[in-house]
């Protein structure tokens, strides 16, 4: 598998795992910018280079650590800290599974972008 394939697989599995965590309302896509042309038209393009909304994985320059960034919207009624910890655990497990036993390290960052 190329690093590109690995990246995509990590992102997909992490997104699926994070989305199942109780208290997660949704993963938060990176939003496209409005075209500032002063008209009502805009392009609803997908976030640049973001295939999986809300999850971004990249291989560190050391080539051994995968940095996985997860952005979530949480549900009120669930403590944000507990939800992010559970998301991190789920993402960590999913990323390692996606690596199929490779010895690469995984570092997960979780950000709550909104509470709904």
């Amino acid at each position, binding site marked *: 598998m190329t690093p590109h394939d690995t990246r995509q697989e990590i992102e997909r599995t992490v997104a699926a795992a994070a989305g199942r965590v109780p208290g997660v309302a949704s993963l938060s896509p990176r939003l496209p910018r409005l075209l500032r042309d002063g008209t009502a038209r805009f392009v609803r393009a997908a976030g640049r280079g973001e295939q999986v909304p809300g999850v971004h994985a990249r291989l560190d320059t050391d080539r051994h650590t995968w940095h996985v960034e997860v952005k979530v919207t949480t549900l009120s009624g669930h403590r944000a800290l507990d939800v992010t910890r559970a998301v991190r655990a789920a993402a960590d497990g999913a990323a390692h599974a996606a690596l199929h036993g490779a010895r690469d390290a995984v570092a997960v*960052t979780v950000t709550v972008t909104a509470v709904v």
Partner: protein
Amino acid sequence: MNGRQVPPDGTGDDEALPCGTPLRAVWEAYDAGTAAQDPHLGTCPHCTAALHELTVLDGFVERARSADRSPAVDPDPFTTRVMELVRLEVRSGPALPLGGAEEDLWIVEAAVAKAFRAAVDALPGVRAGSCRVRPADSGAEAGGGSVRVDLEVVTSLERNLQEVAEAVRHRVVDSAHRALGLEVDAVDVTVADVLDDSGQAHGTTFSYAAAPGTGTAPGHGSGGRFGGPGTGGGPVPEGGTGR
């Protein structure tokens, strides 16, 4: 119908009626509500006719006003349309640390502020406005992610401002712990406006600063200002000793 000629700007302003009264003066008297008291306006046929013309127009204007000013219905498709665009432009502020410093868990300022405002709004007679949340200076040293909160509220006059500030602070700390899991180092409450029964703001500013859990009773300052030296005067929490 003719009369499609619109007087261009800067001309026709001094148009006088056959009686010599400027038309503009007649209409301005009508606007000011003084036309009835003026003996000439009441008797002069030219002025009366000019007033009548305006009254006729006013009847149509009144109908146009009510047509133009009907409030939005629910659901309101126009608002939905605007918000589809606005929601693409997120301004969520910086991310604040959740949990321990090494945990790499974050929550954006806008989400924290929203939770705090909702908690404060639940207090009767109190409404939260601006709510800024930033990492506390002492937080990094303590090895955890703690924040400091600057909150503006409006409240009704009959309430004791010191009690309000205390209740607001309590709600914020409680919401931070229970809803978010965020450590709060200090809460500065500014009563930005005091509302009387009619809802009129007095524009008075009161400020109250304190840290949670210290039980410090703030002293009264002059001019309704609480909490000693301005809004930055929150006591240092236990454990967060000086450098």
